[in-house]
């Protein structure tokens, strides 16, 4: 039986202990098209895709390829059926090279010997990068790459399977506009080759640029599928969250107070070079830049994760030595890190244990015994404030959806009651609704007199939320703009170093 559809997933249900993650969900995808899968954090998008790629076995439902029902036998089975996936969470093998990561399990060998033909593997990788228009060294170790570069490796790897269906679960959450453009070119090529791309993202502008059709999910249920031209961002958001969102960037002007943080000639090896800036109470300082610009390294150095090679930091006018995150926290600094899995969360612990960790002492009596009820109350309040979708505060963080994990990190650091808040890609993987909530919270914090540094690779976010923007390139500050002078072109020019 021939079918219009390359892929049909019909009546898919999947439950985890305490959650019905998917409830009778349908998804139909045409060959040669980009199909966007959209929904709030925890709507079940990733879970649906993990059912498709064989990681989860559905409790009910059928999967059909070109009209034929198929049984998907594990991850390998899905790959064999021509389904590959870029995961929401990065999956690097840190000690291995880029080429090894890409071709793991498919290494070219000499004849039938089992001896790896490394030269050919590297050549294959190089050719792959060429066709994708990427510049990357096949024999670099993954551990030496930035998150964004790792993300590009994952993309290249998923493409290299030459699959019929390629699932991309928030591929752009960790990369900057330049890489996004590359990815879109790649997607166009895939479309032209009559492949299907299932694209998950929370970034509206992207969706409307590349999606042909969109399927919306909410709370584990299928809502609707529409061709893109029948939709507007407003109607899409309404479908997603079931209400209107008035303002994406609710920036308010807050009168600026005294300088709380001043950084003077800070360097960290060659990654951060001679960076100086000041931060005032009530200010939101945006830091823009391309991938590898050294923004993350800058804030990690301020926070005591990296050792500065030169420079001074003053807080409230007094010079301070920050040798560890402990010191930073003592000076009331908070850092919501870029990589939540690596530095942000204890995935094996509950939401409660994560949220209360930084300032646990506040919920203890003098002997170090935890005042349990107080802790739970506080955590519950954070869960409500950040609208974290959990079955209970005891849910293990590993089982939360990606966006909700991100909210846990933010909730944890805000609870620590810092004066200086550093947010590195804070809205990574967060849905539109929640994003505007977080922006509102940022504004509220600024109004309270807190000082905020926000790194974001989403230019509209930086432009929309900042009082002032620093632009970095190659570890140096290449531009500084006050709100009145904001322009996308100027920031981009500084970011590429073409000044």
């Amino acid at each position, binding site marked *: 039986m021939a079918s219009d559809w390359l892929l049909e997933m019909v009546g898919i249900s999947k439950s985890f202990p305490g959650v019905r993650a998917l409830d009778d969900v349908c998804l139909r995808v045409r060959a040669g098209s980009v199909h966007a899968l959209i929904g709030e954090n925890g709507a079940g998008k990733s879970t649906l895709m993990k059912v498709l790629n064989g990681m989860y076995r559905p409790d009910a439902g059928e999967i059909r390829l070109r009209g034929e029902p198929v049984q998907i036998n594990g991850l390998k089975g899905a790959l064999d059926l021509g389904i590959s996936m870029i995961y929401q969470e990065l999956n690097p093998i840190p000690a291995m090279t880029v080429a090894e990561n890409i071709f793991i399990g498919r290494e070219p060998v000499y004849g039938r010997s089992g001896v790896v033909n490394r030269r050919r593997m590297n050549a294959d990788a190089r050719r792959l990068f060429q066709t994708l228009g990427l510049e990357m060294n096949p024999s670099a170790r993954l551990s030496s790459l930035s998150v964004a570069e790792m993300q590009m490796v994952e993309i290249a790897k998923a493409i290299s399977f030459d699959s019929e269906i390629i699932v991309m679960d928030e591929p752009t959450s960790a990369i900057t506009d330049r890489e996004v453009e590359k990815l879109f070119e790649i997607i166009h090529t895939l479309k032209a080759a009559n492949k299907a791309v299932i694209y998950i993202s929370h970034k509206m502008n992207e969706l409307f640029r590349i999606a042909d059709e969109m399927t919306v999910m909410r709370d584990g249920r299928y809502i609707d599928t529409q061709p893109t031209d029948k939709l507007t961002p407003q109607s899409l958001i309404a479908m997603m969250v079931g209400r209107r969102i008035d303002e994406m960037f609710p920036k308010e002007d807050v009168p600026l107070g005294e300088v709380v943080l001043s950084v003077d000639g800070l360097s960290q090896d060659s990654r951060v070079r001679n960076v100086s800036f000041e931060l005032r109470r009530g200010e939101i300082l945006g830091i823009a830049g391309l991938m590898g610009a050294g923004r993350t390294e800058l804030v990690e150095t301020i926070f005591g*994760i990296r050792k500065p090679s030169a420079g001074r930091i003053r807080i409230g006018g007094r010079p301070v030595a920050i040798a560890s995150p402990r010191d930073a926290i003592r000076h009331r600094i908070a850092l919501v890190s870029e990589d939540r899995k690596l530095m942000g969360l204890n*995935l*094996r612990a509950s939401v409660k244990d994560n949220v209360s960790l930084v300032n646990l002492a506040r919920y203890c009596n003098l002997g170090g015994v935890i005042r*349990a009820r107080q802790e*739970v109350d506080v955590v519950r309040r954070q869960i409500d404030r950040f609208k974290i979708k959990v079955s209970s505060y005891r849910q293990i963080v590993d089982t939360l959806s990606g966006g909700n994990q991100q909210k846990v990190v933010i909730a944890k650091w805000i609870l620590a009651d810092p004066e200086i808040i550093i947010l590195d890609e804070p809205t990574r993987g967060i849905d539109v609704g929640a994003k505007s909530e977080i922006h509102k919270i940022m504004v509220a914090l600024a109004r309270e007199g807190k000082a905020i540094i926000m790194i974001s690779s989403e230019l509209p976010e930086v432009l929309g939320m900042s009082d002032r923007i620093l632009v970095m390139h190659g570890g140096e500050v290449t531009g500084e703009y006050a709100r009145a002078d904001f322009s996308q072109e100027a920031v981009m020019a500084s970011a590429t170093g073409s000044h």
Partner: protein
Amino acid sequence: MSMASLAGADGYGTKVKQIAARYGIYIAFAVMFVFLSLWSPWFLTFDNILNILRQCSINGIIAVGATLVIITGGIDLSVGAIVALAAVSASSVAHPDSYPVIVPILVGLAVGALCGGVNGFIIAKGRIAPFIVTLGMMTIVRGASLVMSDGRPVINLSDEYNTIGGGYLWGVPLPVFLFIAVVLIGAFLLHFCKFGRHVYAVGGNELAATVSGLNVGRVKLGVYTLAGLFAGFAGIILSSRVMTGSPAAGAGYELDAIAAVVIGGTSLAGGTGAILGTVIGTLIIGTMNNGLDLLNVSSYFQQIVKGIIIISAVLLDQYTKNSR
């Protein structure tokens, strides 16, 4: 505080649930228990149950310390040797008419805590794998106990000292109470205190714990010191129970303790686990040893059967955990 509010309101409730959810291990224990009760008429007697508890107590006490260590993602291979050093040093000040009995007790505990502290210090400061540090310490501490005792067991201990491991209270062997006390202390620290929360945090994601401002080194120092302290306590009880401080004591105890912890559902990867599980793990091992002796299984086959039981218990647990 009612039981319900206890379970509802705090971390202990979470852990209890987490462990209670691993019903596989209870099934394993229950199966073993019922089976032995049916097979051996001597198994299910008051005396024998006390017997089992007494025989579990030393391994159980060490295993409580091992639980803390393993939850941080570490391991401690030196506890068996620490048992010996504590036994020897406590015994050498426990002769009749020398010091009051509190002296050998404090000496044994101090020696244990000190050895554990050295472990913790090297692991925390040197950033080297606990496996290799404690393996090295295992031979160092064993050597020290041989040097200290000149290779010969320390004998002629006072009656008060011998009461610690050999005495009774209300008809129940003292070591059983000591075991229960250590379990309560361990559970309190791990499940009710800030320290315990930090132990989980370090084991779950050390980098995240550091970035969250935890003093990871101090947490490690703490758990290894406690593990040493408990091992020292076990050494006191052991030497008092056999009325000798032997430098060869405690060989292989580290593996028994780790087995109890893992059977009890604590993952060697760190970040998860609970004291209650360790208690069950200890009971499984103790009951197994007792049962095989009662059934008089021939000594070569005992080894085979023990290995099979350990693997099966963990397999069953894993199976019930995954099948939901």
